[in-house]
């Protein structure tokens, strides 16, 4: 009876705070890995790092952030069909990003920076950990897509969609640090 009647809106604020705390906590993993990269290798970077590919996948992720933002605006205004279309685009871009990392970038990097070397360790650990977060992000977006298709979101209650999209932006924020650290810093 004390706080039995907490409103839905109240709970959504709770969950939003929870999600942000979770993201703060997750950032620490990347902070530790990024610090390790500099501790181990300073700003060393092999010349063979594929700059074109790095720029392309970065752009793909950036584009997916935009479509995710558009999807959120759509569902917040009750436009379900655009929401689903934009969310599907975001998921697709996420999968293209993953494919780029796993099937092109990794096999290349195995040649000039295998995981048994200092730079290779940092490279595979950072891109791997980030790819893992991309994968979970795609999974959560897919759950939101399924729920949206069932008509599970309304203008007032679309927390699941909002959460999955905020998490997707978080994945992008991580890449904002990983990309320059692995591709651009040093020489």
């Amino acid at each position, binding site marked *: *009876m*004390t*706080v*039995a009647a907490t409103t839905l809106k*109240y709970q959504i*604020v*709770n*969950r939003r*705070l*929870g999600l942000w*705390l*979770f993201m*703060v*906590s*997750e950032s*620490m*993993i990347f902070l*530790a*890995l990024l*610090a*390790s990269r500099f*501790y*181990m*290798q300073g700003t060393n970077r092999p010349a063979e790092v594929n700059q074109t590919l790095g720029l392309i996948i970065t752009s793909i992720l950036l584009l997916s952030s935009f479509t995710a933002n558009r999807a959120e605006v759509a569902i917040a205004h009750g436009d379900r069909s655009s929401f689903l279309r934009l969310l599907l685009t975001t998921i697709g871009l996420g999968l293209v990003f993953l494919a780029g990392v796993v099937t092109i970038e990794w096999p290349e990097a195995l040649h000039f920076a295998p*995981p*048994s*070397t*200092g730079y*290779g*360790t940092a490279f*595979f*650990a950072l891109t791997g950990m980030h790819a893992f977060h991309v994968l979970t992000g795609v999974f959560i977006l897919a*759950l939101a897509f*399924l*729920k949206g298709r*069932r008509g*599970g979101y309304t203008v007032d209650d679309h927390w699941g969609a909002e959460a999955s999209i905020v998490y997707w932006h978080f994945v992008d924020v991580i890449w904002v640090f990983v990309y320059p650290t692995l591709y651009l810093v040093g020489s």
Partner: protein
Amino acid sequence: MSWIKGLLFGIVGFVIGSGLMLLVGQRRASEPMVTVGYIFFLVAWLLGVGVWDHWARGWFGLENKPTPTFKSHGVARYFAFSTDHKVIGVQYLVTFVALLLLAGALAMVIRLQLLQPTGILDPQTYNTVMSMHGIIMIAVAVAAVIGSLGNYFVPLLIGAEDMAFPRLNALSYWLVPPVAILLVVGSLLPGGFTSGWRVYPPLAERGGISMLLFLIAFLTFGLSSIIGGLNFIVTIIRMRAPGMTWGRLPIFVWSIFCASLLSLIFTQFVATALLMELLDRVVGMAFFAPDQGGGAILYQHIFWFYSHPAVYVMIIPGFGLLMEIVAHFSRKPLFGYKYAVGALLGIVGLSGIVWAHHMFTSGMQDFLTAPFMLSTELISIPTGLVFLVTLGTIWQGKLRLTTPMLFALGFLFNFTIGGLTGIFNADAPTDLQLHNTYWIVGHFHYTIMGGEIFAFLAGIYYWFPKITGRLYSERLGKLHFGIMFVAFNLLYAPMMIAGLYGMNRHVATYPPELNGINMFISIAGFVLGSSFLVFIYNMATALRRGAVAAANPWQLRTLEWQTSSPPPEHNFSYAVRVNGHPYDYGVDDSTHVAPATGAPMPAAAPAAE
């Protein structure tokens, strides 16, 4: 029921996961096979114990099943996936008291070994016993107070109905059994644990599958700790009853808030350090290979960046319990409440910049020594404030020397010694001599065992009537305290002296001239261990036939006493409205809580001392 289903699911999951790895060409019992098998085990275990039934079905558009309730499930609900914070608190309490006793029994084995210079166990087994004792006690110290007393009493103390995320709360508990299972299985495998609880490379990267299990157990435990911390922070920020301002928050709640902040942020670092070891082991990376730039020092930096704050995750709730209990049983307002809160926040602020004081002898860069010496000594300022607050509260109070109060005063004495001996570890010149000796072991146990575990016991004795609705025997409680306090000091003070005489830690054998003092320590250890028999006997008889406890047996002001013992399913039978400070004993016209709807509060019963 949950347990059996979880185990069955888990085993099936392990078979599927490891089978998949065999299919892609991994060898049997290879590291990738065991790791992937365990990930499948963990997910399947969680789904089996109730995550699927009560949670995940909703993700796929199915109807979630209801969780067990107070009325319909009786004692059985303690073995099920419950989302009631009181049930989860009891689950934590029983699990961690059991783990405390298990790791205590392992300590008895250690002392048995050290009765004689040559011992009875071979060094390998001794290392396994020592590592098990270490990691289990660390887990107990990190989670026992927060998980059990925090879970049970934070919502009550802030006038909430439950935690902010009840299902997440259950998840953080159900992540603990796999940790225990992994550790027990790992310790029985050939090779055992070689490297102590800190799992420094390269040793931890070289051991067999048993070391792999140790690493993933530690990692799983970290996950549980992070989830728990997150839940407490949201609960304390968002679920306070009307009128429960930050300035009226009971100090125990403040302490849980501070500890949760630390575990939310810093636990990820130990998780990453362990993950890096796993990556080195399982996929052949080179984080801690000395010739690739990282090396063991990198591990130590990341590891202690968590593990120093971790000691505050352990001790801050202890401080909270200390001040809470001392204020209530001195029947005085908490002296300098704002300074107490400031001190706890100050410890949180400083805790992230002191870690390298564990590494003065590690071979790190010399220029790091002085700054870390300075920052470490700064921490004695907020810690000193906590002591000032406690002493100021006791000063001229009407002390009621109940069992919880005795344990709190014991904490005060022990931690004073623990704190003062810490100065010699923080000073690099003395630390160079003292490091790696029993001086460190004695100091550490004075702070955590003499501090947090004493506080934990104080908390158990303090809230036992509320949790169970029964009264324990005060006489037996005081007997437990008496034996434990004396034996404790006879155990750990000589340990520090032995350290000064050159007794190294982490050793299975020692020079014969140290035999006398070691024998003395061992005997004191056995007495300390036996004092827990009094505790168990007292609790068990009280549970079965103790007198029925009133709602508020000691006439205290805080919210948890203003409801029945044990509290009803949603904690309060009236709408809570807070209108005053929790500790204003003897202040005219001051109340902490007034029923807002005019419903009667539970009648206060006469003192049951």
